[in-house]
């Protein structure tokens, strides 16, 4: 598969289809990390394996800028897994990058392993999102490398089961669970920075006028920050779970977003990133629907 990825990258760089290809390379101490390839000669640096967990859609907006004032913006090639491609669709839908300037290299994915992307860690089981994933082939790409598993995939519902477990608790128990999670949060904003859908120029968490939350790193502020972020991602989170992966203290942010995804799919039949055109569920309505509390 990697030969195919490299040769595609080489070709689109050589024929100037794109200025940069965002892919994966080998880092230090066994880590895999994002790579920015600018010439065909460098394409051999790219790797593909079960540790290519980063959602590279996160870099598309930043790379799609003009190299010089007045010059046309860079054309960007990017390697996407199925979940990443959904995130990219959200960006396209939200007009964060024009499709014409992107070359999307989809890669059929067998799932990524826990601890991926970090130096010096042994890879674990499949990441929870990958255990649950039923969609292994990215949609809407210019080219797709690899094929779906022949036997199909039976999602494990690892995250769904955790949602059910929490739903069965009393509200007080749920609050205790989340207080313990948020107590560990450092407010390092890694979740936000790693999130492709968190593209606001000024984050509500840092806005001064009006000031929604203080800068204090205390549980009330942290709870509000995560409540705010989860709500702002409702209908826009495509479930790459980078937020949970990058969190240095293991806050279960994947559950917050998964709650919204499940609820929105159940109520409105909408999956974030299913295409690049369907309006976001919170930016649309059907007059005849009811308040269903």
């Amino acid at each position: 598969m990697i030969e195919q990825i490299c040769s595609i990258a080489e070709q689109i760089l050589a024929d100037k289809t794109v200025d940069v290809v965002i892919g994966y390379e080998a880092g230090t101490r066994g880590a895999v990390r994002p790579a920015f390839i600018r010439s065909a000669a460098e394409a051999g640096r790219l790797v593909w394996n079960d540790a290519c967990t980063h959602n590279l859609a996160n870099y598309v907006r930043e790379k799609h800028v003009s190299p010089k004032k007045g010059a046309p913006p860079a054309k960007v090639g990017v390697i996407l897994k199925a979940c990443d491609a959904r995130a990219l669709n959200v960006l396209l839908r939200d007009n964060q990058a024009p499709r014409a300037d992107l070359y999307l290299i989809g890669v059929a994915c067998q799932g990524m392993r826990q601890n991926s992307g970090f130096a010096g860690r042994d890879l674990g089981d499949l990441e929870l999102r990958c255990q649950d994933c039923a969609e292994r082939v990215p949609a809407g790409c210019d080219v797709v490398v690899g094929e779906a598993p022949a036997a199909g995939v039976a999602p494990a519902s690892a995250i769904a089961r955790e949602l059910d477990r929490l739903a069965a608790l009393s509200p007080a128990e749920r609050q205790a669970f989340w207080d313990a999670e948020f107590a560990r949060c450092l407010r390092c904003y890694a979740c936000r920075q790693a999130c492709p859908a968190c593209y606001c120029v000024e984050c509500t968490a840092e806005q001064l006028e009006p000031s929604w939350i203080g800068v204090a790193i205390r549980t009330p502020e942290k709870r509000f920050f995560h409540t705010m972020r989860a709500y702002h991602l409702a209908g826009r989170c495509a479930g790459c779970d980078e937020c949970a992966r990058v969190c240095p203290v293991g806050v279960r942010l994947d559950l917050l977003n998964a709650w919204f995804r499940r609820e929105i799919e159940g109520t409105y039949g909408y999956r974030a990133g299913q295409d690049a055109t369907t309006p976001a569920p919170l930016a649309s309505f059907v007059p005849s629907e009811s308040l269903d509390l």
Partner: protein
Amino acid sequence: MPDTPFEPRIVGFLCNWCSYAGANLAGTSRIRYEPNIRIIRVPCSGRVDPLFVARAFQEGADGGMVLGCHPGDCHYRDGNYYARRRFNLMHGFLDFLGIDERRLKIDWVSAAEGKRFAQVVSQFTDQVRDLGPATVRQPAVLGG
């Protein structure tokens, strides 16, 4: 501290064109309702960012109400349709975070429904009173 019975603090976001007028009507008609509600007048239920409600709970509210125009009656045509989706979700999400869903009430009350306004508010206040104080009572420092 004297042992006073618990009286919930309820924050109500009321649409200017319907429920706020409904509250006025309840008042001028001298209809009794529970006085626990602190009313915040908004131009439309569509103006109510669900985070307003989350923030109210954060700052120590025991219950939150969002009252808008009946579907189809929005002064701005479709503000309450957006509000309906937002609160449909936020209602459950706050519960998922541990804020009992019975502490948040979303309803439609028109300008003519003074009596209904009083009923909705009183019923909700009773409900929250029975639930006891909200446990999220950890006021964050207020914004500078």
